[in-house]
């Protein structure tokens, strides 16, 4: 991990515009948050292929579905909360049901739109999206993944939900060596006492936690699950077998997100103690992002505490 930080949404916007120059079938839609989602970068480069529909998320996503039936590759952009809550019907009834090739970019996911408060936080989007048949669910952890995941989504045939953060995130991955593949988890740190399975911006916290645990003599493996659906069952089972305990970390309600997905797999294939770190089924509030993560249990210290607990549960 380097000290270099870049806003994930900026990388997303630049990548989308780059993709637009490579493939004229790529179009973008936004619901009046283009300056926030950064789809505006695409819009400035390709105004004829950019459709800002105003504050009408459901209409935007349904239009995207129509475009996809003609062979276009639409990227629909809005806040993650509204992608699910306002546009949930066309996401399900048009896109997932018919397996249409639409990319749904939900920005400001988790608590990352921190100051706007619980009305704009998105803590149920993973639960919704992964319960849609045919949907691929991708969560982005760092600026390098923002580029690679956006490219992978564009190349993939079928509906994809891209979960994007508003945060400036440190660069974790090396673009030159990162073999990003949809559905394949990534082991960043090896360890033997437990595995910390993280997604999105929480990967940074997981890495910090592993360092803190090492100082306490606990060897934590760190795995990045960027594709929450389809989840990398093979890797999770291997981690459970080799380390015997799992802590999941996500910026989402503890119900229905990454923790649930991991627990579903391991309960059936390799039952081991699991601790799920996430938002404890509550609405958060306005505030500084890092302080908010602390108050709602999503800092490295929280991960450390749950790691120590899960290791004790092994015995």
């Amino acid at each position, binding site marked *: 991990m380097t000290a270099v930080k870049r806003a994930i949404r900026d990388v997303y916007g630049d990548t989308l515009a780059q993709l637009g120059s490579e493939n004229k079938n790529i179009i973008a839609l936004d619901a009046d948050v283009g300056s926030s989602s950064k789809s505006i970068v695409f819009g400035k480069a390709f105004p004829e292929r950019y459709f800002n529909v105003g504050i009408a998320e459901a209409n935007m996503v349904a*239009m995207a579905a129509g475009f996809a039936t003609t*062979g276009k590759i639409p990227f629909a952009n809005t806040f993650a909360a509204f992608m699910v809550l306002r546009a949930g019907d066309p996401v399900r009834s048009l896109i997932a049901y018919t397996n249409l090739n639409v990319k749904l970019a939900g920005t400001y996911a988790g608590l990352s739109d921190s100051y706007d408060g619980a009305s704009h936080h998105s803590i149920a989007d993973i639960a919704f999206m992964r319960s849609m048949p045919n949907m691929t669910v991708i969560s982005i952890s760092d600026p390098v993944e923002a580029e690679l995941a956006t490219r992978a989504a564009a190349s993939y045939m079928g509906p994809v939900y891209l979960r994007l953060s508003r945060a400036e995130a440190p660069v974790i991955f090396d673009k030159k060596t990162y073999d990003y593949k949809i559905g394949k988890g990534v082991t960043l740190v090896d360890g033997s006492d437990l595995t910390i399975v993280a997604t999105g911006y929480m990967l940074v916290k997981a890495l910090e936690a592993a360092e803190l645990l090492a100082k306490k003599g606990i060897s934590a493996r760190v795995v990045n699950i960027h594709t929450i659906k389809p989840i990398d069952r093979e890797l999770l089972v291997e981690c459970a077998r080799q380390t015997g305990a799992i802590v999941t970390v996500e910026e989402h309600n503890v119900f229905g997100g990454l923790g649930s997905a991991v627990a579903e797999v391991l309960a059936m294939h390799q039952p081991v103690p699991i601790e799920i770190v996430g938002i404890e089924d509550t609405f958060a509030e306005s505030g500084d992002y890092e302080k908010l993560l602390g108050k709602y249990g999503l800092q490295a210290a929280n991960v450390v505490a749950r790691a120590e607990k899960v290791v004790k549960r092994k015995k």
Partner: protein
Amino acid sequence: MSLRNENRKHLEGLCRKFRQDLIKLLHGIQTGHPGGSLSSAEIMTTLYYEKLNVNAKNAKDENRDRFILGKGHAAPMLYLILADLGFFPKEDLVTLRQLDSHLQGHPSAKTTNGIELSTGPLGLGLPAGLGIALAAKLDKKDYTTYVLMGDGELQEGIVWEAVMSASKFKADNLIVIIDNNGVQLDGTLEEIMPMGDIGAKWAAFGWNVLHIDGHDVGAISDAVDTAKTLKGKPTVIVARTVKGKGVSFMEGKSAWHGKPIGKDEYVTAMSELEVAL
């Protein structure tokens, strides 16, 4: 050009046949929506047999016209037409709504040849149709996208989002037809949620508006021809219809939105359709 008399007679004959087939089919399976299928018989028949450039032998031709059934519950009428045109075997019709059938209760683009868009949850057909229409403009193709909507469907908020957008994006290759039968599931529109002057509402959003008798195949044909000449704005055709048209005890009755047809009702309906129209 107005319909020639023989074409008019042909379309009317088809509608009469489709109505009989619909009653037989829905009586046979004891499920499905007769009311809104009967009200849209002339609209769908005129589009498919006179206006749409579609061909079962080349169902995915990228230059084909697109027809979207916004009011997806009228699927049985659409299925009868698609089967007659050879998009799938007529023998499949009796499997409607049954296990392992490609003919779902509401249209499924994934399973049924000739269905352009999966519909059912009301209001989604129009915005999706707008996406298709705008794709045609990007691709410089001259096909037309048609969306058939119910009047009750207009109560969905997303409809007005799409009406706004179609106007902004000048989708003059999009034609909406409203099956204005005045009746929804729980009662008349007047009772449940009055829509007032539908044409005035769309006009206020910047659309061309045409009003016709939705059971007059000649009027439907003429209105579509007119709509195609109107440039710079999308066009809506408000087609006044009768829910359950052709079966006296179903006409104008919300109870027949989606109700199984009994044995005596079947006999009465079929005898009326033999002589009527």
